[in-house]
């Protein structure tokens, strides 16, 4: 163990096996570790215990509508990008009971949960996803009303970020200016080098956790190698998205014929919205026992691609895929900026990879812009 605590903003080097010491320290501090692991032919986020649970020596190959795992010829610990899951699964779960009611003699009583919220340590958060979390922060905690469940999870979370040195085939964070380098929003951020990690300290909590880990100050050599790796990554993005005047472009093209073109291919299946790390829309459903003695309200993930989402008295506002895809893309890339001051897209590429028919928003947008295929 080292004597001193690394400085906030400082860079240190830790050996690859020493990452286990950080995992142990986090577990000792009461965190559940959530990180990448191989399951169902993909790299998902799940509860992990050991360093060996993460996909060491695995890579993912991504293209519109396809995702394949392959073995790497090295033992890279984070030699892959983002998979079908995002951290919203843990911060804003797919299904959450908001409260329950019980019938009483004079009406009903309301019961809210007193369980302490989970304390998560997120392992391997990429730059795009750090921005995505910041985007959801604007939705759930930085608005006039705070969402208590999200807020509690978020405040208690520890974030171990990882800089992307090998962007994937559907990545376009560089054009969204959200990556590949992690700039803020983490406690610790790793850059994977051949034989060690360069670790940047992003918070006092991060520094404190490092005190249980063997580290040494970073030398000029490691810093320059990490810089070079990031610079290389920038040039290897799978695709790009032209963000110039996006809101105006979309607001001016609400009747563009290309929306009908997308609608011929789009399945309206909601996959893009479910894998998107910023999409936050939800439904609230009522459940009860057979006679209504007890009831509960449950919030579940929902999507603007589902008809019920646009229900108004007497009908549905967006009866077809043309209207739904337009709503989704216009929200992501135009009205989001009016609502939250930032774009709703972070360039993670999930919606491209996980669309069963491989619809690529960067290409659809280029078509709207009149630029044809990028």
């Amino acid at each position: 163990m080292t004597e001193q605590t690394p400085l906030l903003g400082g860079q240190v080097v830790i050996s690859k096996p020493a990452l286990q010491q950080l995992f142990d320290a986090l577990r000792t501090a009461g965190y559940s570790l959530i990180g990448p692991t191989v399951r169902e032919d993909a790299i998902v986020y799940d509860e992990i215990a050991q360093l060996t649970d993460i996909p060491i020596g695995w890579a993912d190959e991504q293209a519109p509508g396809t995702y394949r795992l392959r073995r790497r010829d090295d033992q890279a610990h984070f030699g892959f990008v983002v998979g079908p899951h995002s951290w919203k699964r843990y911060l804003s779960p797919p299904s959450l009971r908001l409260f329950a009611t019980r019938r009483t003699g004079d009406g009903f009583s309301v019961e809210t949960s007193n369980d302490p919220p989970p304390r998560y340590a997120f392992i391997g958060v990429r730059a795009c996803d750090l921005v995505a979390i910041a985007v959801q922060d604007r939705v759930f905690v930085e608005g006039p009303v705070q969402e208590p469940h999200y807020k509690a999870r978020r405040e208690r979370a520890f974030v171990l970020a990882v800089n992307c040195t090998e962007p994937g085939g559907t990545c376009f964070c560089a054009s969204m200016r959200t990556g590949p380098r992690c700039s803020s929003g983490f406690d610790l951020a790793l850059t994977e080098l051949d034989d060690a990690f360069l670790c940047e300290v992003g918070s006092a909590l991060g520094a404190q956790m490092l005190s249980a880990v063997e580290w040494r100050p970073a030398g000029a050599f490691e810093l320059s190698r990490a810089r070079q790796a990031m610079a290389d990554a920038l040039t290897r993005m799978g695709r790009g998205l032209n963000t110039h005047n996006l809101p105006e472009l979309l607001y001016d093209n609400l009747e563009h014929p290309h929306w009908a073109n997308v609608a011929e291919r789009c399945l309206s299946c909601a996959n893009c919205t479910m894998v998107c790390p910023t999409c936050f829309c939800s439904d609230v459903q009522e459940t009860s026992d057979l006679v209504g003695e007890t009831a509960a309200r449950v919030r579940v993930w929902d999507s603007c691609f589902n008809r019920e989402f646009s229900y108004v008295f007497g009908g549905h506002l967006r009866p077809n895929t043309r209207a739904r895809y337009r709503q989704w893309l216009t929200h992501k890339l135009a009205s989001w900026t009016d609502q939250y001051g930032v774009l709703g897209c972070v360039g993670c590429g999930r919606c491209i990879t996980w669309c069963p028919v491989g619809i690529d928003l960067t290409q659809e947008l280029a078509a709207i812009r009149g630029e044809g295929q990028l």
Partner: protein
Amino acid sequence: MNSTLAKGHWSPATGHPMVPQPAVITHVQPEAHGVMTYTLGFRDPAVGEAYRFHPGQFNMLYLPGIGEAAISISSDPAEPAALRHTVRIAGNVTQAISRMEAGGVIGVRGPYGNSWPVDRAVGNDLIIVAGGIGLAPLRPVIYHVLRHRADYGKVTILNGARLPADLLYPQEYDDWRSHDIEVVVTVDRADETWKGRVGVVPILFYALRPDPKRTTVFTCGPEIMMHFVVYEALARRVPKDRIYLSLERNMKCAVAFCGRCQYGPTFLCKDGPVLSYDRIEPFFTVEEF
């Protein structure tokens, strides 16, 4: 964005953003076929004490086992203790509410949304245009005007309904008229006993010669009706930022988390339901938006 709108009145009086407070129905007033007004009193006196609302705001009404619905407040903002909602049977929740009687308990959370900018309209002539149940969220404005009549110039209420029996609050029109308010009423379909006007609400504008420099229009009703109210107002040169509409979309959360009530850049539960026409013009006639 236009900043002249009344800001959303956040921090709902009922506390937790998603959890309702039980309230007791103290009175049920049948209004028209399938429409009733419920007077509610919070069971927790502290909640009742703290509860305030502005004209045009709404509450989420909850029935355990059934669900929740957004319902406008239709009573006098100066008397928050007599909280009234005029409910039209349109779905699950309103159907279940219609089966309730005095003494029944309903969950309430709110108030949510922004309000009709009655302060910005001080010194103006007011044209209040309502269709059907749309008069309910405008009635708090009328009560406000009755209490502050000297603050406003000429006040005209144009009110329409499908049938004479569907007209809301007819017993109050004489009181409104006694405060120097012109109340013009029309119906779409009349029987032989009806001696009043027949025709849709926007045609009531034909007789109006508003002074564009000092006129504010508030309208609430079926969306297609509001389209033509806007066109009539614009034809009379009422400025776009002085034509206010109350829009309706489905709401599940009322606190801008569920995403359902988006109308372009706005969340109707937070930035609305009252929006000035200049803010929504680009989207107003886009189909399936």
